């Protein structure tokens, strides 16, 4: 009998499949389709101190093997999430959930995290220092090791739950950012957020997105994500949550071989609402195929070639 369980920052997951923030809402729409308690957990919609309408529309663009989004952290704000969403979530999800938090200042992050840290339902806080679609915030924290570390230090000082920092791939040296976060006390690293991209409408001669640029996700980014997971997992001593274009049980295993302790599934949920359920169902047979008995055995299991030049 295949063992799919993994441990993420001291909390056991029945399996490593985690729907990614921004592609799963607060879970209600998916709970209408299947029992989402089959998931390892899920990372809920990125939450900020104040409610946000987000960016103007259009916010979505088609790409080869992927999509762009420029939602811009639309969310009801942390008070509403605690007052409305979390109690409702109790009715359909009984596992520890991952809270995804964004902000525009260190104080924002600290304020929002402090409130969420007090919620029993929440198992981990995923600190999003990498949203590419908001100005004067989000990604700017994630592209500078010191700025990222500053957010982590402030949040760690006032929280007890494991803090997982979600990194931006739009950097020259992602390892430097990851190491700075680890040094600042981060309990885990998740990556990658979206790659900054753009499309232009040939008829209107305008960017497809009203925000001009947006974040690229989907299978197109998988090789870049895998490379960064590999680099970071071989540099830090804290667990790494891999994400970026994962769409199948094979992709999950490839991410874990690269160094991921758990794997988030993002865009795939949008084009196939059953994607995560199906991946979980496929994992045992896929494990048999690759002679894996215990999924946790393969974390960082890929051996590099010696550089022979």
């Amino acid at each position: 009998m295949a063992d799919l369980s993994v441990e993420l920052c001291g909390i056991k997951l029945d399996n490593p499949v985690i729907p990614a923030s921004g592609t799963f809402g607060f879970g209600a729409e998916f709970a209408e389709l299947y029992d989402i308690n089959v998931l390892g957990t899920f990372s809920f919609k990125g939450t900020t101190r104040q409610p946000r309408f987000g960016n103007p529309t259009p916010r979505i663009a088609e790409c080869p093997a992927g999509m762009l989004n420029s939602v811009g952290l639309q969310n009801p704000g942390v008070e509403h999430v605690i007052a409305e969403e979390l109690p409702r979530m109790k009715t359909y999800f009984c596992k520890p959930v991952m809270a995804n938090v964004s902000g525009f200042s260190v104080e924002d992050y600290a304020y929002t995290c402090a409130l969420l840290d007090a919620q029993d339902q929440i198992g981990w806080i995923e600190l999003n220092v990498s949203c590419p679609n908001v100005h004067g915030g989000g990604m700017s924290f994630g592209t500078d090791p010191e700025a990222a570390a500053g957010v982590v230090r402030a949040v760690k000082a006032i929280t007890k739950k494991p803090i997982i920092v979600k990194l931006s791939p739009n950097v020259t040296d992602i390892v430097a950012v990851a190491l700075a976060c680890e040094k600042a006390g981060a309990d885990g690293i998740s990556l990658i957020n979206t790659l900054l991209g753009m499309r232009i409408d040939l008829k209107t001669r305008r960017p497809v997105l009203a925000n001009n640029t947006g974040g690229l996700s989907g299978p197109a980014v998988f090789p870049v994500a895998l490379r960064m997971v590999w680099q970071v997992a071989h540099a830090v001593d804290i667990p790494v949550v891999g994400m970026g274009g994962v769409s199948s049980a094979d992709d999950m295993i490839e991410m874990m071989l690269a160094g991921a302790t758990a794997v988030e599934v993002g865009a795939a949920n949008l084009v196939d609402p059953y994607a995560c359920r199906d991946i979980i169902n496929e994992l045992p047979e896929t494990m048999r195929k690759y002679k894996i008995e215990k999924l946790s055995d393969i974390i960082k299991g890929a051996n590099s070639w010696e550089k022979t030049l």
Partner: protein
Amino acid sequence: MRDITFEISENVPLTANVRRMRLYGDTADITRAGQFVNVRLDGFYLRRPISVCDAENGVLTLIYKCVGAGTERMSRMRTGERLNVLTGLGNGYDISLSGRRPLLLGGGVGVPPLYLLAKKLLAEGKDVSAVIGFNTAAEVFYEKEFASLGCSVTVTTADGSYGTKGFVTDALPEDATYFYACGPMPMLKAVYAKTDISGEFSLEERMGCGFGVCVGCTCKTVTGGKRICKDGPVFKKEELEWQI
């Protein structure tokens, strides 16, 4: 919402770039006019949302315009091929508010969802008028189909090459009790400005998922941001605060 694979039974042109596709499959999830399906197409990552023109007895009718590579691909599909869709998406029109003389206002590919709506309103014994607008005579479709349902149909063309010259707002009947509108934004805003009765608008936007989780298609309403794919696509006139 359900994930269902239909079989194409027809895919024919109605005009130069508007086509009708009929499909066999389970249509049970389509409970209201104005809902849509989200179509998966080989070679494209995102699904394509298409409004439902008709759905009954396991036959789904979609009318779509070839505007890009996706709908272009769709136009080349043949009878017997399979099409995977997420069906029963969106809220649809509320026929309980129609009053005795509902008015259907459609522009271009905004016309199709009004066809199923007309059927449902007529089944309720309502006295239905439809005003459907196009750019030019060559683009007109479904006038006969609406008429044969038993609606009184007025066609407008922007260039006057067929029916009344002008836009649907140039042919509004006097005595309508409630309107249901679907079409391009300039038309909807004109309807918003020129009607003193209440009614409903079906809105469009580029969508990621089509079922409310990516919040890609948010629009402003008097009660805050709403998801066109899940809270809409139909919104009551009173919910919208458009600057005219």
